[in-house]
């Protein structure tokens, strides 16, 4: 008895699964998302999980998006409520006119429902128990049975799901056939007992193209393989552990010598983050490409070493998969909150290179590029992902590699160069770009060796506490950072259809939500030029963009608008002209949120005396 018309939409809605952690639902839910992809319809799924292993609530949300909007949308059109613990909250979260799918084996009192939604009961436990006796089987197949029922309700092609099951259980015939059987149990029950399909439905389309579906962490790890990393040292921490785990898996596949079977890589699970970055620095000092992956608390521990990398000029690559801080914060929620901590990590005057990929494809490219940059600049390079890209599957363009590419090992003096009598001063700025030459240990019997240290030294690496020598060195490091501006990925600008005095700056995982928000803002009559920052130090085009616009919104996922702080600090710009748009509750920022915040501010600008100031 719904007092609201049921929602009706083809290929554009949000389904959310509420499960209990440890119930084995993750693979069924992911299969649901993949099945929709196989229909040629883009999806954007998100895992919302607790920082516990067993028993606590988890949600998996699938945004079905014909238009290809990959940011989180907000709101739920269909709730698959499999967790009694979160029932009330889950039911409350459904959009008016939406659908509630639940296990009706034990009927719920009517007070537990809402009048403005459509309730679909399927006696999942009863169906499962009548078919399976083993408790584990009952639990696992229940998930496949609801997948089957949903496929009927949403009008999905069961062949495509069978195909996926076939791929997943290739060579395991028994598992394959029992999964297909469970799928049809659910599907047939729904077809016989319910009105199928619903207003929400899937229709075959061709909007996926050649795009791939991959997690950012896996893509970044593969970037490290392609980028030539041979040493990885890490310490487990959510949400970065899967980087090292994926690197291990990729290396097993791609990095064993075909003749000897031996590994062309070394992976060490360090005793902590201090050791992990220490191993990276030791390996890089000795000429190997090395990296670590961590998250906020790990960065805190690594900062002393990061200072050493900066000052002693040793390459290092750190992949920081950010989560909500400070301290333990919300370890399984996303944020972009380590910008300042990484940009200025360690004591004394330091500055570090940050790279901000927007999706897995860029995570792959930037990860590979990070090793070139680290060796070219002889310093720490941070690859700044966050949980939202790192741990979720994202549709993105296929990964690409140019086979003619050689690694840029930077300025390394070889034995031959030393033999030719090239003047070697470890900290000599020979080329005027602030980047000195280094030698690897063991290069030459009598030339080119030096003592690496975190203490001040002169251009020939001789210990010195002379003030002018120290200042000279610090100035060269500034020059080197300026050189970095032109080596790192440049910002990408996209202009509004009409000339505008307003701009927006954003970065990283905010990208898909921002792309979508622009459409919503245009519909409200607001025109904005966009600049997506892809690295720190900022390229000169950032300053130009700021100069060309009266007001620039800076959209980011942290409380203190850290990127804005960095821009203000580095560009010496009047902070009033940079308007912070922040979102930091641990959920990914949505287009709706951005459009509302910017739209309201724009409306406000037009009616207040500020108008004068911006004419």
């Amino acid at each position, binding site marked *: 008895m719904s007092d609201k018309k049921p929602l009706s939409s083809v290929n554009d809605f949000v389904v959310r699964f509420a499960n209990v952690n440890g119930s084995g639902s993750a693979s069924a839910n992911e299969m649901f998302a993949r099945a929709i992809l196989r229909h040629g319809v883009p999806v954007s799924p998100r895992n919302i999980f607790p920082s516990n292993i067993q028993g606590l609530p988890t949600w998996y949300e699938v945004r079905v998006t014909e238009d290809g909007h990959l940011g989180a949308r907000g709101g739920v059109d269909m709730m698959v409520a499999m967790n009694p613990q979160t029932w009330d909250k889950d039911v409350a979260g459904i959009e008016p006119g939406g659908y509630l799918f639940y296990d009706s084996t034990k009927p719920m009192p009517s007070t537990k429902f809402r009048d403005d939604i459509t309730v679909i009961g399927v006696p999942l436990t009863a169906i499962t128990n009548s078919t399976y006796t083993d408790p584990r089987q009952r639990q696992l197949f229940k998930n496949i049975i609801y997948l089957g029922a949903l496929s009927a309700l949403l009008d999905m092609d069961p062949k495509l799901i069978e195909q996926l099951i076939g791929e997943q259980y290739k060579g395991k015939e028994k598992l394959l056939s029992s999964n297909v059987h469970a799928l049809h149990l659910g599907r047939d029950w729904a077809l016989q007992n319910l009105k199928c399909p619903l207003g929400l439905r899937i229709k075959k389309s061709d909007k996926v193209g050649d795009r791939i579906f991959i997690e950012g962490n896996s893509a970044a790890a593969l970037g490290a393989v392609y980028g030539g990393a*041979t040493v990885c040292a890490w310490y487990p921490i959510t949400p970065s552990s899967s980087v090292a785990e994926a690197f291990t898996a990729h290396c097993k596949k791609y*990095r064993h010598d075909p003749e000897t079977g031996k590994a062309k890589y070394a992976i060490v699970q360090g005793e902590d983050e201090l050791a992990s970055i220490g191993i990276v620095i030791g390996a890089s000092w*000795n000429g190997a490409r090395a990296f670590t992956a961590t998250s906020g608390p790990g960065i805190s521990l690594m900062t002393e070493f990061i200072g050493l990398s900066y000052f002693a000029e040793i390459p290092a690559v750190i992949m920081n998969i950010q989560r909500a801080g400070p301290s333990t914060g919300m370890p399984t929620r996303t944020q972009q909150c380590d910008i300042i901590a990484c940009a200025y990590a360690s004591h004394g005057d330091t500055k570090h290179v940050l790279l901000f990929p927007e999706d897995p494809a860029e995570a792959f490219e930037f990860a590979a590029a990070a090793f070139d940059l680290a060796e070219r600049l002889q310093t720490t390079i941070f690859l700044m992902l966050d949980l939202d890209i790192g741990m979720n599957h994202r549709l993105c363009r296929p990964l690409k590699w140019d086979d003619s590419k050689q690694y840029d090992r930077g300025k390394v003096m070889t034995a031959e160069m030393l033999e030719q009598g090239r003047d070697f001063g470890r900290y000599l700025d020979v080329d005027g770009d602030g980047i000195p030459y280094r030698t690897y240990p063991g290069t030459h019997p009598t030339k080119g060796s030096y003592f690496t240290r975190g203490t001040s030294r002169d251009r020939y690496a001789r210990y010195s506490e002379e003030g002018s020598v120290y200042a000279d060195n610090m100035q060269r490091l500034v020059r080197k950072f300026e050189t970095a501006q032109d080596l790192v990925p440049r910002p990408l600008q996209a202009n509004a259809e009409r000339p505008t005095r307003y701009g927006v700056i954003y970065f990283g995982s905010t990208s898909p939500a921002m792309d979508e928000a622009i459409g919503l803002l245009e519909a409200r009559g607001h025109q904005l030029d966009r600049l997506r920052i892809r690295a720190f130090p900022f390229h000169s085009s950032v300053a130009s963009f700021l100069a060309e616009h009266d007001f620039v919104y800076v959209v980011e996922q942290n409380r203190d608008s850290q990127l804005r702080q960095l821009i203000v600090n580095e560009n010496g710009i009047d902070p009033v002209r940079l308007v912070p748009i922040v979102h930091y509750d641990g959920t990914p920022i949505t287009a709706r949120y951005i459009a509302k915040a910017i739209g309201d501010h724009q409306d406000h600008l037009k009616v207040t005396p500020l108008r004068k100031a911006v004419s």
Partner: protein
Amino acid sequence: MTYIAKPKFHHPGLKKNELGYTHRDYEGKISTLCAGCGHDSITASIIEACYELSIEPHRVAKISGIGCSSKTPDYFLGNSHGFNTVHGRMPSVLTGANLANRDLIYLGVSGDGDSASIGFGQFAHSIRRGVNMTYIVENNGVYGLTKGQFSATADRGSKSKKGVTNTDNAIDLVAIALQLGATFVARSFSGDKTQLVPLIAAAIGHKGASFIDVISPCIAFNNHAGSTKSFDYVREHNDAVNRLDVLVGRDPIAVDYAPGTVQVVEQHDGSKIALRKIDADYDPHDRLGAQTFLARHAAKGQIVTGLLYVDPDADDLHTHLNTVETPLNTLEADRLCPGSAALDKFNASLR
């Protein structure tokens, strides 16, 4: 601070080793430590051992933490690369360096503050992993560089120069190294070059994690009555288990006293210590035996010196990780990058 450069002039008559290097080729900058510091004697022993072994100096990577002891790599093997890292973290940097290039010799130098306090974890884990290295702790029971605070190896009841009594129990790094599976474990005394030089040489020749704890009195802060790491104290409490020859088939260093006798060894500063010769039945291949031996003597307040344990068939971290023989730092894109064809296949698997 080193202001004075050493003269490059070599006397033509200087003795040469097998590779034609003279003793001077193994020296480094002039030490800036306190004259008479035990650490300088260890430096001298390292120089001696490398000379005896006819090591190519530039094939050694010397890595240290922070402290007076950690400064010493600047004072030997001037033609090799050194890395003075951060406090307590030498082991991880050395581990990384070793992973990058398995062909060099890795010499880790640390202090007792560096290794038993802030770096206790890294010390333990590098040993546990079996990194192929020679890990030397120059153990003076104090923080020298920060002027005399107790370190974690200071014995309970010992007194600082300021008269403070240490109430914490001491950590015995040798006992820990044995427990963690080090495949070469020894203790020596900085002044006992005769014992120390062959120990260092043997440790360098050993494949796997070698650990040597060298008692090294700090003459500035820990060489007073009340300290258990002073010259006098160590001289009275030293109980050496054995003496070693250089293992690698070079001229042996003569062992010039009979089993059961006491050898008096003269220090660089003129002081002397007494070493007791190896117990005739001591078996350095028995880890458990070494542990009990150590514990028994520790209970008597005695410092045991000599080679306590060695596993001649040890392997190392590279063996455990099954890495290629070619140093990882020499591999280039042609051997590391799977290429675009593999990537296309990978892409296809993600649709």
